[in-house]
């Protein structure tokens, strides 16, 4: 008897003990079976309701995977990852090459209008490149390259 909880002297030990002597009934067995069966059935039904069907899980997984793939492709196109792939062409001018020795107004030359490092390796090759530029009508590029050649090789004499 929990006298502290029930209050001072509300139920005394003798009365409680006397009651315990007569309160000996047990639940009939068939009631135990009924209640426990009901509990199991209810839990099983709830589990079935909460468990998604197999096709639902498959479709959900495929949808999520597809969405992720689409996002990755989109990011790749935008160049977010900084790697290869089909980049979107942005409205930025193509890189320009600075011709060595050229005047400030002529310093920026497209790659195809200047001599390569290999052509510049010898004065003869460089000169042939200059002549090729002239032949293509790229006189300003040729002049710039000639100025560069003369700067790199001050004693250069144009071949006859």
């Amino acid at each position, binding site marked *: 008897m929990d006298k502290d909880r029930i209050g001072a002297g509300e139920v005394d030990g003798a009365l409680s003990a*006397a009651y315990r002597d007569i309160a000996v009934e047990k639940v009939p067995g068939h*009631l135990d079976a009924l209640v426990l069966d009901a509990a199991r059935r209810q839990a099983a039904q709830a589990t079935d309701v909460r468990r998604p069907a197999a096709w639902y899980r498959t479709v959900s997984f495929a949808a999520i995977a597809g969405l992720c793939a689409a996002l990755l492709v989109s990011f790749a196109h935008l160049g977010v990852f900084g790697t290869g792939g089909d980049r979107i062409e942005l409205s930025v001018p193509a890189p320009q090459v600075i011709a060595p020795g050229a005047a400030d107004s002529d310093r920026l030359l497209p790659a195809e209008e200047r001599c390569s490092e290999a052509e510049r390796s010898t004065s003869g090759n460089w000169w042939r490149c200059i002549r090729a530029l002239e032949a293509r009508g790229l006189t300003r590029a040729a002049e710039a390259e000639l100025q560069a050649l003369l700067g790199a090789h001050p004693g250069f004499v144009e071949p006859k």
Partner: protein
Amino acid sequence: MDWTMTADAPASRVCGRQGLSYAGPMSDRLEDTALMLRYRDGDTAAFELLYRRHNDSLYRYLLRLSRSPQTAEDLFQEAWSKVIRARTSYRPTARFSTYLFRVAHNCFIDHLRRNRRHTAGPGADPEQVMSDAAQPDEAADSLRARERLEAALGHLPPEQRDAFLLHEEGGLSLDDIALATGVNRETAKSRLRYAVAKLKRSLAGKDPVAEGVDHG
């Protein structure tokens, strides 16, 4: 006699009546609430353990409250069915025993409302018991004392019997009894005090019916 619930309980309803709002100490029966929460998540073994802890006491509570074995069985099954069905909304805001006995109490009240002319069970006539007790048979004193207690219990006003049984079978405190029966603490205390006084007089061989006045 105020044998109906007061309406100061929250909106949640159990067994067609108001539910629990009391957030009293739970530490002594924390295992019960944990078991109920596990059952809420589908663990039927947890429910079976919980059921085994309370089945006999709940049955005795309903048996003596209704004074009819058949009614007790029906109410017992109904109460546990309510607990099972309400498991998804179960919240451990009170001791599980308080929750369980409140559900059972509400089922009994609903039963009374369905059967306005509640027939008394096969309880013994207290006057006959008093007469038997007067016989000078010392060997049978203990047995007669138990019979007197049983009879006196059966003849208590229902709300006093309810308070006593909730305390004895459910182990409920005064606060819990008040919560389970929907009355304030002083009313619960008064009911329990009168019940105890009458039962003690019956144990002493005094006639509780002749002395008693319904103070419920």
